[in-house]
């Protein structure tokens, strides 16, 4: 997220919020509020601090992983390697930390480095070899899964350390954890970056029209590559936090993040075609996702019903968002 070169070319490009954009932002919030009200009606425990805290705890990891996905989708791309990176960094972090607090900095640096490397690979493949985003990230995803398996020989080792466990799971002020605070900081940085920096302006410009951006002297190649690097970094950070949450590592631990991050971004009203949306929406999308999964479990609906409900809600939200946006456009 350092794509803030001092160009003046795109400064006048501040996207004005149209009525469609405002609706896009409003619908997810309404859905979240209605869903929360229904959940509380069925299970009043959801009003209490412990339940809210555990929701936020889950949301913080998905939320961090969804940062990169949001940025990449904003330029019309997609990152399928998010889940694999979360899994691999989870495996590596646990192996490096091995129950020692003193190894935390090393683990964090290594893990972030690897995440950035994967993101850089994605970006270079997409921009220089002209590999479509879907295929490039599919390829790196496959490779990352393999590296994770080679690294562990199929049997994950190591544990989180007390300090990391405490950071991610110990509550303060009733509902907050260190992980939630980290999420809030990352979220604030991303939102400020997207709203009021030249780099953020570049992101929307590239997402709306790549060709025109190039003519307007927007550094398209650099922007796209840096966004994929950012996606690798946030996925790695999510994998690090996941290590503290689970206390150890297991194979395929992060695989659900692949599709859940995409779903959260879409539920938050960001357009798949790029250029419209933002991380504020994704936060709502993340909360909807986490609440949905948790509520269905509490109501006692088995995994099968959760999958079905998840799919139906995703589909109907998509219909709703697209309809409203089109009618008011």
């Amino acid at each position, binding site marked *: 997220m350092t794509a803030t070169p001092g160009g003046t070319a795109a400064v006048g490009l501040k996207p004005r919020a149209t009525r469609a954009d405002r609706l896009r932002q409003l619908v997810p919030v309404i859905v979240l509020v209605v869903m929360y009200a229904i959940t509380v009606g069925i299970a009043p425990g959801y009003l209490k601090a412990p339940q809210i805290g555990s929701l936020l705890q889950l949301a913080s990891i998905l939320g961090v992983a969804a940062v990169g996905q949001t940025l990449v989708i904003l330029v019309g791309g*997609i990152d*399928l390697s998010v889940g694999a990176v979360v899994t691999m960094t989870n495996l590596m972090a646990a192996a490096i930390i091995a129950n020692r607090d003193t190894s935390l900095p090393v683990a964090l640096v290594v893990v972030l480095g690897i995440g950035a490397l994967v993101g850089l690979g994605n970006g270079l*493949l997409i921009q220089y*070899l*002209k*590999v*479509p985003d*879907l*295929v*490039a990230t*599919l*390829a*790196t*995803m*496959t*490779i990352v*899964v*393999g*590296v994770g*398996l*080679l690294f562990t*020989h*199929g049997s994950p080792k190591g544990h989180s350390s007390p300090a990391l466990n405490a950071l991610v799971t110990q509550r303060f002020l009733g509902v907050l954890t260190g992980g939630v605070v980290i999420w809030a900081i990352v979220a604030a940085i991303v939102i400020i970056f997207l709203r009021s920096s030249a780099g953020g302006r570049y992101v929307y410009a590239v997402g709306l029209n790549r060709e025109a951006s190039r003519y307007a002297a927007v550094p398209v190649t650099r922007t796209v590559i840096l966004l994929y690097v950012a996606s690798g970094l946030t996925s790695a950070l999510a994998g690090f936090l996941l290590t503290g949450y689970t206390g150890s590592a297991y194979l395929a631990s992060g695989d659900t993040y692949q*599709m859940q991050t*995409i*779903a959260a971004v*879409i539920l938050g009203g960001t357009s*798949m*075609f790029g250029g419209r949306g933002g991380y504020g929406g994704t936060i709502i999308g993340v909360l909807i996702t986490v609440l949905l999964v948790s509520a269905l479990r509490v109501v006692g609906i*088995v*995994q*099968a*019903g*959760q*999958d*079905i*409900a*998840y*799919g*139906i809600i*995703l*589909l109907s939200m*998509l*219909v709703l968002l*697209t309809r409203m946006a089109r009618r008011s456009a």
Partner: protein
Amino acid sequence: MRTARNYLRREPSVLAAWVVLAVIVGIWLAGTSNLSVLSVTIMVGQKVPLVLASIGAAIVIMSRGIDLSVGAVLTVVNTIIAAGTAAHGNSVVWIGIGMCVALAAGAVNGLCVAMLRLPPLIVTLAVQSILLGVALYVLPTPGGQVDGWLKDLPLLLVGPVPLMLLIVIAVPLVTWYPLRRSRFGSALLSSGADEGAAYASGINVKKTVVSSYMLSAFFAGLAGVIMSMNTGSGDPTIGVPFTLNTIAAAVVGGVSLAGGRGTIAGPIAGALVVSFIGNLLFSIGVNSYWQYVVTGAVLIVAIAIPVGLRAIRAGRQAS
């Protein structure tokens, strides 16, 4: 002869995919000492589901879509056959029911994409989630059974040739080639290349797109039927690797993700390449985990080569 040469000139990546396949199979044959008719027959049978599912995925990609529900359709068909037969017998009826569910799922995908104009990635992702849920309801844990004679089909030899090999050759020939030569074939490719132009030339783009998703579901369903024969039981997670492997197979086989370009011979070779990588590494004694790394690398190389060739050709023309 000339048409074959023209075909290969038009589609160099198809040739490349078959050459890569030949090399991989060659190395594998050289490294495997204890080959028997039985082991080859079983192995061919194991490759059939991915080949069939990849044909379907490729058809959708040609229309500039993407189908992430392929693996889930396969799973649903597999669980319906296995659970249905275990409870009431008569696999044939359950194969019919499974295929109907598959086609319905394909229709939902197609209608959402064509009529509601929703992004295919998310539509098929949502449908995948729904189908996996249905599969878990039908068969919560691996189990079930299929009729005995179905289990024997993958081992059946027609003369010296395994039945499954005939299926791999026959299914594309009797389903795809008539389609490709019909009006639908050109409608499919032109809708994928340029929707507006296709519409202006009188092509019913919506119908074409819906058909492409239904065809994809049909092939994925067939893959599920073969899968049930192979395993003789059901498993609600059996289709997970298929979703991304089918896309990889289509891409390795030279189907353009930008739509409008592609063959079926390519994805068939692509599917065999993707699934042979595991056999190859095993036969030369490499840790099987490397297969992921190699598959990813093959995917990148398969895409990068045409780009590189085009760049070289453009450079030569410029100078």
